[in-house]
């Protein structure tokens, strides 16, 4: 295979990895604040349908992406209100969010099924994008891809270098101590959950405006769940999320290419690969107890009721 083919494969890996990366980064921040939100799949698909619908109506995919961010955040507010204000069980509430999101998006999106989508075109910087080899790969992708990469470092800096990030991690590790220090635990957690929702919404928009670009019911196809697994895989570290998301993107693309080569393996088995890979990765990570123990936010999944 020529170099051009490899470049185009790398670009398609970026496209497959970006939604995973975005959703996982959002969930990472939420989990670092101690909130386990299993509704990623639901928030993502709500973002996907909101983004697609907005782009169809306004004709502007960027508008679609902005609305998707707000839709994801608004949808995650439901989860925040239940788990943080009404202290419901986080696991069950997250599942409810996913079920509701899949149903709601199916209903809203019904009239958009089969419509040709509006693709968010790759950006083009004169000279730079036209460079041989790296031009398109580095300087000629879609805007959401650049946002996702910037977010990796932004989130990393925020969590480990800023005071607000320290506060957020304190809330996730011991909400009782954080509360005693005068930190508004519930407020920090609300903001973290909303950030997670916004990221998942943008991830959904990438699916329906860049990767596929169409509306297909249930088009997230478990990516929200894989994003949750990536956070565990990355032991709650943003840069490792980047690595994990791209590994998964590579597995997905490799599977397409194997299918396209007409290798004599049933398509269904190849489609199962990313899911099986997720299980394998979870097992390998869980075996390394030290790594998991050190990084898991200690208050993850626990409710907090502030005393007066």
């Amino acid at each position, binding site marked *: 295979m020529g170099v051009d083919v490899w470049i185009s494969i790398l670009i398609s890996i970026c496209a497959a990895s970006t939604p995973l990366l975005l959703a996982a980064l959002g969930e990472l921040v939420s989990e670092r604040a101690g909130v386990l939100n*299993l509704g990623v799949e639901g928030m993502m698909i709500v973002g996907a349908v909101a983004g697609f619908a907005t782009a169809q109506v306004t004709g502007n995919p960027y508008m679609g992406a902005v609305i998707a961010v707000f839709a994801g955040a608004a949808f995650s507010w*439901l989860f925040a209100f*239940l788990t943080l*204000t*009404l*202290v*419901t*069980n986080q*696991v*069950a*509430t997250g*599942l*409810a*969010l996913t*079920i*509701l*999101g*899949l*149903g*709601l998006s*199916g*209903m809203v999106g*019904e009239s958009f099924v089969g419509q040709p989508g509006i693709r968010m075109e790759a950006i083009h910087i004169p000279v730079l994008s036209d460079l041989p080899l790296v031009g398109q790969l580095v300087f000629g992708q879609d805007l959401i891809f650049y946002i996702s990469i910037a977010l990796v470092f932004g989130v990393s800096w925020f969590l480990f270098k800023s005071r607000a990030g320290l506060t957020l991690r304190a809330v996730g590790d011991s909400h009782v101590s954080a509360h005693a220090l005068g930190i508004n635990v519930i407020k920090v957690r609300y903001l973290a959950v909303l950030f997670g929702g916004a990221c998942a919404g943008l991830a959904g928009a990438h699916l329906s405006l860049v990767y596929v670009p169409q509306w297909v019911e249930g088009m997230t*196809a*478990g990516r929200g*769940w*894989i994003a*949750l*697994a990536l956070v*565990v895989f990355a032991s709650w570290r943003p840069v490792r999320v980047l690595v994990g998301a791209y590994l998964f993107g590579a597995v997905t693309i490799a599977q397409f290419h194997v299918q396209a080569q007409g290798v004599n393996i*049933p398509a*269904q*088995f190849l*489609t*199962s690969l990313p*899911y*099986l890979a*997720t*299980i394998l990765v*979870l*097992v390998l990570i*869980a*075996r390394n*107890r030290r790594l*998991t123990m050190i990084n898991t936010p200690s208050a993850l999944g626990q409710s907090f*009721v502030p005393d*007066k």
Partner: protein
Amino acid sequence: MRIELQKRPIASRLFSAFSPFLALLLTLVAGAIMFLILGKPPISSLYTYFVEPLTDTWSREQILVKATPLVLIAVGLAVAFRSGNWNIGAEGQYLIGGMFGAMLPVLFNDWQSPLLLPLMMLMGMVGGALYAFIPGILKARFGTNEILTSLMLVYVAQQFVDWLVRGPWRNPQGMGFPGTKSFNSSAVLPELWATSDAHYGTIIAIVVAVIVWFMLARTTKGFEVAVLGQSPRAGRFAGFDAKKMTLFAFLLSGALAGLAGIAEVSGSVEKLDDKLSLGYGFTAIIVAFLGRLNPLGIVAAALVLALSAIGGEAAQITLQVSDRAARVFQGLLLFFVLACDTLIHYRIRIVRPRRHISQGVA
């Protein structure tokens, strides 16, 4: 304005009995608002969803058909959730159970024997239990997150069954449609009464619900489930083994999901095809919570959810409302159930912002 929770000294009996009903009521109100937004008459729409299916025989039978797998799966999930094991992959265990059970009539299509049906049911349970054993043993052995592994296996099971019914198990006389040969009559669960769609799976489901209710409420095993679920530490002091409980919870819930699968295949579809995965495994999660993780409550909850599903199909025709509206209802219902359960342990107070902190009144 702010919402504040105040812990009740003891759990409210009133709300533990009424919170599911309150949740249903709130779902109806939310549904009425949704229909208003969609431009449909709210009251008559709700009537279509929740009353009309009760008025004719065909719909009533369909409710039983749909409630059957929901009861079987949700009863198993109730045991798993109570013990603190989050088996989210019942949909996959249901599929693999259906596939295992179908193995006999598919591979030995002409075999007729009174033993066949019991064997198929048993095989269904074995299939579901084996498939659930994977996330169970991974959690017990390595501490792997069971929510994610059990869910990933749903996608794998869907792909696998899809491959079977399009590939090696496809009926060669099926005009190219995916699906196995139809089963012979001795591999089909008998109908409850002549010319009905309702089948004996419903009886099996009720018997299972009663047995599991008895186990949870009256036996040491049930006590162990409750203790380990509420406080793993206390369970350890009592000499209960949390790892064995994880395996037990997954094997039981998997077996019941598998039984639901083969009961659906044998009683309703009468062959294995590509449309077995209808989301019962996920709806059953809602059923389990609406039934307050109590097998008898689950029977009632399954009937409510089945009713709304049948109502949803009717609404699609008479109201031109998307059949996805039923799923929105289900999602809302779970939200309201969880929110109303808060009332059991907390009093909810709405507080105005405090203005006098500086004066030391706070």
